[in-house]
């Protein structure tokens, strides 16, 4: 009996397509001797589909056709097992049922990666790969993430946040920003990945348009000082809050000030099916041994403090003028699960995926142990009465 793994990708997110690529790429690399893999495609309406076409990247060129040739399913928990059941159910026909042992969400962005899908899986009670609800949610919110990391002494850039309530008076926003920082500044939606809505502003006019743009994508935005002359260094971490290891460091090569959505996913990608792995980059990044170790240990520290699990990619910034290192952001489900950072340190993609599944099972059994210790202590006098009964009929 192989472990049945449902690899889930897609979902209601701006990074839908990237997720499909990451998901199908992962499926191709999973250990088929150990795992039975059930590809589960989540549409942009958050409906789940299974079938042969779902695992075939070519089929995604025509989504309507794909859905027509696939079966819609729902995930349900039944007698201690989690199943995919065909939906809608037909009269007089026993619905198709597939029992799954582990869920492997490979989804990117708000509405899926931010704890939403994780909460759903947790409610069903199925072990799942990657960060838990809390860590996923914090990892997606740039402001909360900074607050927590600041608390444990990891350097982050100071920032200001504004909500749609503040947006009514944009002059006040500009005034606050200009009082706090000098140009250039960076404006970001607080909870989006993949560089969408992020803009650098060198003057007031650019700032206003950057703010307008950011509020198109989020109800809360974040502004921080923009570092003009910078290097971006990424490092992945694998493990859980007790034990974690760091990968090799990479330096993505950029065309503009910020690694844009186009850079990340559209440039240089023949047919657009390679995802994050296809961004032009330097691995290993050219770093002094001291800086490399500093980044790697800081990555592990941040990973543990944020309560992460599985694999996460952490993006750092080095200010070339001052030499200062800053934590920039974390991806709790990195594109292509950052496999290209693990191969240089001797962990092939196949093994990385197996380790991720083992981490999911480990967390599940640790959770069950804790619940078990609650059970044993609820015993009060009234239940004694029921338990012991009266010795009647003697």
């Amino acid at each position, binding site marked *: *009996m192989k472990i049945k793994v449902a690899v889930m990708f897609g979902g209601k997110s701006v990074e839908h397509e990237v997720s499909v690529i990451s998901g199908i790429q992962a499926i191709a690399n999973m250990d088929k001797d150990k795992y039975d893999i059930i590809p589960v495609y989540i549409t942009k309406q958050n409906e789940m589909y299974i079938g042969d076409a779902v695992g075939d990247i070519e089929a995604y060129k025509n989504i309507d056709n794909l859905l027509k040739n696939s079966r819609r399913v729902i995930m349900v928990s039944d007698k*201690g*097992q989690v199943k995919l059941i065909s939906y809608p159910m037909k009269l007089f026909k026993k619905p198709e049922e597939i029992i799954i*042992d582990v869920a492997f969400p490979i989804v990117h962005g708000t509405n899926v990666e931010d704890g939403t899908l994780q909460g759903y899986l947790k409610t069903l009670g199925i*072990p799942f790969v990657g960060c838990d609800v809390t860590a996923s949610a914090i990892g997606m919110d740039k402001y909360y993430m900074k607050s927590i990391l600041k608390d444990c002494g990891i350097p982050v850039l100071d920032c200001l946040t504004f909500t749609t309530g503040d947006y009514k008076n944009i002059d006040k926003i500009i005034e606050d920003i200009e009082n706090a920082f000098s140009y250039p500044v960076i404006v970001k939606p607080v909870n989006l990945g993949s560089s969408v809505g992020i803009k650098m502003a060198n003057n007031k006019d650019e700032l206003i348009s950057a703010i307008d743009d950011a509020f198109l994508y989020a109800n809360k935005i974040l502004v921080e000082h923009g570092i003009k002359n910078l290097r971006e260094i990424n490092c992945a971490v694998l493990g859980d809050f007790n034990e974690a290891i760091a990968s090799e460091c990479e330096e993505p090569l950029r065309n503009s000030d910020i690694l844009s959505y186009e850079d990340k996913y559209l440039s240089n990608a023949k047919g657009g099916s390679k995802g994050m792995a296809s961004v032009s980059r330097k691995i290993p990044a050219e770093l002094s041994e001291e800086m490399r170790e500093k980044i790697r240990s800081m990555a592990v520290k941040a990973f543990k403090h944020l309560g992460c699990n599985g694999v996460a990619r952490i993006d750092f910034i080095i200010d070339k003028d001052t030499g200062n290192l800053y934590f920039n952001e974390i991806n709790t489900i990195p594109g292509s699960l950052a496999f290209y950072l693990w191969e240089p340190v001797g962990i092939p993609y196949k093994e990385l995926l197996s380790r991720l599944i083992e981490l999911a099972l480990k967390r599940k059994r640790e959770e069950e142990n804790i619940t078990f210790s609650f059970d044993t202590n609820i*015993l009060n006098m009234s239940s004694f009465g029921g*338990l012991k009964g*009266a010795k009647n009929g003697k």
Partner: protein
Amino acid sequence: MEFIDYIYLVNLIVVILSFIFVLRYNLHMFQLNGYKNKVHLRWLKINRQKQAILVIFLVSAVLAAVARIFALALLMLIGSFIVLLYYYILSKAKAKKKLVYTNRVKRLIATNLILAVILTGLIFPATTLTDFTFIRKAVLGATLVNLIEPLLVILSNILNKPIEKSINNYYINDAKKILKQCPNLLVIGITGSYGKTSVKHFLSALLQAKYNVLMTPESYNTPMGVVKTIRSGLKPVYDIFVCEMGARNIGDIKEICDIVSPTHGIITSIGPQHLESFKTIDNIIKTKFELADALPKEGLIFLNGDNEYIKNKEGLNHPIYYGIDNPNVDYRAVDITVSSKGTEFTVISPKKEEVRFQTKLLGRHNVVNIVGAIAVSNTLGIPLEDLIIPVRRLQPVQHRLQLIEKGSNITIIDDAFNSNPAGSKAALDTLALFDGLRILITPGMVELGDKEDYYNKEFGRQAAVSCDYVILVGKRQTQAIREGLISEGFDESKLYITDYFDDAINHAYNIHTDKHKYILLENDLPDNY
């Protein structure tokens, strides 16, 4: 129909109703006796006064056969009512383990009903006398069937045997098939006269430091219990299956081993448990070591090296011993400090590593059980250091020396699942550690065969030393304990005997004292005692 026939008719209805309750009660007891014909027959014999009321039906049947007279019919009706009432009350009594309507029970009921109808029908051709109306014959037949109903349960079981066997075989084969599909699964069998459930829980908790573990839940330790666990719970994610194996007869352990094919085994202890069915201690030893015999060549057998019946066993393939007292064991706990707050000990491994462990569990016997679990976990590749936290987090198994705080000045030490001499002694030793008013509540021990009285008397002697107050539940059952207490000069004014558990606990609560009360609940008998 004449008036008298209406009385017969009412009587018939009452007899049928009472039949349902008699059936229910006897099925319940039959289930508690493990569906074992011999055990149940013996139980019927010993507890014959409980159902002596059925004699009314004999009288009733005679009356029905003698004459068709109004007064006799009325008398019969009254008799039937009394029986109905008695069994009705019996069915309303609170049961610790209720009758579970499993499919097997449903099949038994079906067979039993068919039997009852056929037997009732036999009376029709047998009574050809003129005065026998249809209804009178029916009453006579039903009454007679009701009289022998306790035996019909057993007869139904005998008749159902082939069906049950083929159904069980189907389930067993299915479980074997599932196991075959998991070639990398380690199966660890656990048996022993006592401590096996504790070791099962401890071992699962420790192994989870590294592995995904399935264990047989609660006290599922029969072949069908194990089969049920495999069929409903064994998922491909598991690395290890920890399987408790219980035994009451020679061959029981082998039977389970034939199903699960254990890779490794643990024998936690051997002692005079279930002597009634085993007859001799040698039979018990033989049965427990069926586990060692079932292991593959490279299989490891972990053994409690402190146990006198275990440590001298020879001819074992790969024995690994653990213990406290015996200095020659592979895994030994030393420097044990026990307090009312918990226990600390140092484990020395075969590699001469020494690691200090702490647990909130009480008593030396728990240390032995934990060392057993440590020995297995360490041998299967978990470093001793990694076991410190799981050992510290171990929870007492329910009703096994489990501490329950009741407000600020009462602590209950719940050892209700215990029922053997060694365990009872350990519980009393633990009670003695506490500083306060020490109260024992117990119905005594059973299923110890000829030596039952001897062990209970011994228990009474030990209790006299470690308890300030003793409450015995069940006059007849606890006579030997009382004798033991008095022979040690226990103050009889501090002894209270009652027939009801609720009364016992209330009495304990109402004892006046300024000190903290520690109430030990020792052993708890099921309803068939």
